[in-house]
């Protein structure tokens, strides 16, 4: 059983969340400035899920995320600069500008990808957990996914097989009440799309406050301990909310104003700040952390802007393990 985090760790998490928030804000501004192309799915509002989980996981554990994955990439160690560079199609992008916002990956930090086909990565996380077992390590694998992913076939197949093989994998649903523009409640037979399905796979589950980084860290810590102990998978349903629309083109007009207001009032950064104060951390310590975060983001923007554009020749590398793309003689 992992102990609840101390003030120092909580302050680190607060700063990490502020960095993620600031980096996404910068990405949004760069998009408006025409410097970010394609589409982006901001995780603003979800930061506590990623930072809390990473705080409870080990560096050698594996994380699999969705196209809404900026927070997971950075929480696991991708730098704001290499993430922004990716979105800006720069040569220094974390994926060489070949993946983009929807596919941020930092394999060296165990962040094994952001997947843009809903639900597809749940079996992958189970497979990574199986691999850990086969290699005799006690690593765990974690799949983060949205509420909408709970109604697709891959979810069902992954949870059943992970349970039968008792794999060290965590299935963590970031339930933000909506799919793209449609409420999850209108297309799902049960109230808690992930947690209420767990029993069908004989798996334990918990519905938790996804906006409280400490609650997330504790729940993930417990689940990871179970997994490492050989007790199999856990389903966690973290209740959270996205501060913006589904993607950059979405004003999110379909969300009732009171609902939005109520959730903005539970901003994970404010919740963490409140906890810090409770723990006796001085107001200015928190301010200093926020300022450090702002500086980190500002430096990242400068670095990403200064980086070279991706070389078009890169379009023809990395198809095969030999680095090339030759498919015929």
């Amino acid at each position: 059983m992992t102990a609840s985090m101390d003030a120092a760790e909580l302050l680190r998490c607060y700063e990490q969340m502020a960095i993620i928030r600031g980096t996404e804000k910068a990405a949004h501004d760069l998009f408006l400035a025409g410097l970010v192309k394609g589409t982006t799915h901001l995780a603003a509002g979800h930061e506590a899920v990623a930072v809390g989980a990473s705080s409870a996981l080990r560096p050698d554990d594996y994380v699999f995320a969705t196209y809404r994955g900026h927070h997971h990439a950075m929480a696991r160690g991708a730098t704001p600069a290499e993430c922004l560079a990716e979105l800006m199609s720069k040569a220094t992008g974390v994926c060489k500008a070949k993946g983009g916002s929807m596919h941020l990956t930092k394999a060296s930090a165990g962040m094994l990808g952001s997947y843009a086909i809903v639900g597809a990565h749940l079996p992958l996380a189970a497979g990574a957990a199986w691999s850990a077992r086969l290699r005799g390590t006690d690593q765990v694998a974690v799949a983060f996914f949205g509420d909408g992913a709970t109604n697709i076939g891959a979810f069902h197949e992954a949870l059943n097989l992970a349970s039968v093989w008792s794999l060290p994998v965590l299935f963590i649903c970031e339930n933000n009440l909506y799919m793209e523009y449609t409420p999850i409640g209108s297309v799902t037979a049960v109230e808690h799309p992930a947690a209420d399905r767990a029993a069908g796979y004989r798996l334990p589950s918990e519905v938790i406050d996804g906006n409280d980084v400490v609650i997330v860290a504790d729940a993930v810590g417990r689940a990871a301990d179970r997994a490492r102990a050989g007790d199999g998978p856990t389903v966690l349903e973290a209740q959270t909310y996205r501060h913006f629309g589904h993607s950059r083109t979405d004003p999110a007009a379909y969300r009732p104003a009171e609902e939005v207001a109520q959730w903005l009032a539970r901003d994970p950064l404010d919740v963490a700040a409140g906890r810090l104060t409770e723990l006796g951390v001085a107001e200015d310590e928190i301010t200093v952390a926020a300022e450090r975060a702002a500086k980190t983001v500002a430096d990242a923007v400068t670095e990403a802007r200064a980086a070279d554009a991706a070389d078009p020749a890169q379009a023809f590398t990395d198809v095969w393990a030999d680095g090339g793309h030759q498919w015929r003689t």
Partner: protein
Amino acid sequence: MADLITYREAVAEGLSREMRRDPAVVCLGEDIGAAGGVFKTTVGLLAEFGPDRVRDTPISEQAIVGMAMGAAMTGIRPVAEIMFSDFLACCWDYLANEIPKMRYMTGGQVTVPLVIRTANGGGLGFGAQHSQATENWAAAVPGLKVVAPATPADVVGLLAAAVRSDDPVVFFEHKGLFASRGEAPPAGHVVPLGQAATVRSGADITVVALASTVPLALAAADELAGSGVQAEVIDLRCLIPLDMATVLASVRRTSRLLIVEENPYQGGWGGTVASIVADEGFEFLDAPVRRVAAACVPLPFADALEDEVIPTVAKVVAAMRSLLDY
């Protein structure tokens, strides 16, 4: 001249015309109702036809297409939307093994009159899992009809034919064309499946194109017209039925063939067209049959890289020149 509508508006227009005509036509898919579709191609349908005929679904591609099949077998004419054509892979069993085979396997006892609409193709910087041109996947499955319009009028006319068809149709709407404008088609406009359109006449070279590559081919033809080359551009409109009669008749006149497709060269639809011409049109040819296709790599995010991979006017012009200089 007639008023203009966008390709995007044409989809909603085509759907509503058919839904007004036939109460058995219903739509289902993700975010197609209140949201009007993520590409705004179903705007207005919920308001006009109500929630029974315009249904939002969960993210369950197999259920969407599988339910459409079951409904089509029992008196309904469903139009199912799969948001991005890449996601056809998530319900491929239905497109490859169930829908196209049911009529045949039962000795003709059952028909499956449905349409699967999907947003296809690249050029928008959506990355490897949201940018593929997958019409070749469907064109490789006997029992499916495959449609890919290039203009707003064809969207309406081919959608009408697709919805009225008693055979299953996969209808590819190109993301890169949604914002394009064209003449609004008259009431009752229907374009029969399997009839290519010769959208530019010329005697020097035949350029066969589909959907997004039609404007590329036309732009390239215009560019070469400057140097006195008269290119004939054929918009196939459908891959199945495939109008080879029009292609072969054109090559007989021009003796030169360039195929421009967004599929990767490996397994792209152009291979089937090229092989038919290399067999049945062999004697017409005064030059090699050439294909401008996507490079055989996944689609990269950065637009500078994506341009390297997918067909461009410059690549089409260069290929046309190489054949003309042959």
